[in-house]
């Protein structure tokens, strides 16, 4: 798998004891892992506990990761186990079933909407909306060739090499376009999330 290599450099550093490399991987994947865990675990506080446990288990077991799958796939499996372990430990006959029934009432028995847990702080939800709005707005103003490169990478999951082939440009151009697109968006995200800076990595 091509993605198997994407985190290889950071993983290797983390395995050799560079904690900052693991921190970078946490920053990179915490939202994706939290969204995955939220499919199993409903309460925001429990989601955070389970995600913490998953990352801690991953760090303790870094030595056992041999790169046979992508690092993210490995992490995802650990998070799945942590979430299932949590559900097993806390069958919560009252709380959990109550939560599930509420969800059933509200949404029929349709699929759980990822990323939104019960008990989600309204302020967080508002901020999430503002982030999404700022990104959409930035994207609309972005030079089309920059937006195209970023979307191919982030949304379509194409590699730099594939994008270069698709757009018939050198890979260096792909690097620059993705970077410039991100920078354009980041500048517009900063005013929205700047107040969180002291609490971030």
């Amino acid at each position, binding site marked *: 798998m091509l993605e198997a290599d*994407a*985190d*290889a*450099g*950071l993983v*290797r*550093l983390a395995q050799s004891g*560079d904690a*900052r490399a693991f*921190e*970078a991987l*946490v*920053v*990179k994947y*915490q*939202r*994706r892992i939290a*969204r995955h865990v939220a499919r199993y675990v409903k309460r925001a506080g429990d989601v*955070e506990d389970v*995600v*913490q446990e998953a*990352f*801690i288990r*991953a*760090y*303790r*077991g*870094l*030595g*056992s990761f041999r790169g046979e799958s992508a690092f993210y796939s*490995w992490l995802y*499996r*650990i998070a799945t*186990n942590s979430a299932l372990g949590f559900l097993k430990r806390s069958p919560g006959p009252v709380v959990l079933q109550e939560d599930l029934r509420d969800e059933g009432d509200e949404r029929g028995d349709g699929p759980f909407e*990822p*990323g939104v847990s019960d008990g989600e702080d309204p302020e*967080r939800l508002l901020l*999430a909306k503002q*982030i999404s709005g700022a*990104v959409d707005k930035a*994207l609309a103003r972005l030079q089309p060739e920059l937006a195209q490169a970023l979307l191919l*990478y*982030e949304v379509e999951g194409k590699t*730099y090499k594939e994008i270069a082939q698709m757009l018939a440009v050198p890979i260096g151009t792909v*690097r*620059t376009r*993705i*970077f410039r697109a*991100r*920078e354009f*968006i*980041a500048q517009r*995200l*900063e005013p929205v*999330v700047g107040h*969180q*800076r002291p*609490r*971030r*990595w």
Partner: protein
Amino acid sequence: MVNTTLKVSLLLDGELEPQEVAPSLAQVAADAGLRDRFTLYGLAGDALRGNGTPDDGFSRRIFERMRREGVAIEPGFDPLAG
């Protein structure tokens, strides 16, 4: 500066040359402005995938807990076993 922030973008995507990873990471980890870039570029990507939830210290609480509990790599520990 552009070259440095470009490297942040490449670090995030695993697109640096292998020998560039360690020095770039060291640079990013030591510089709040570059850590910001790393964080915001990641947030932008997640937001494009419909998952732009704010980081209200979520990552930092993980690191703090790891330090508090003295979490270390344990040879022989398989997080997928059991």
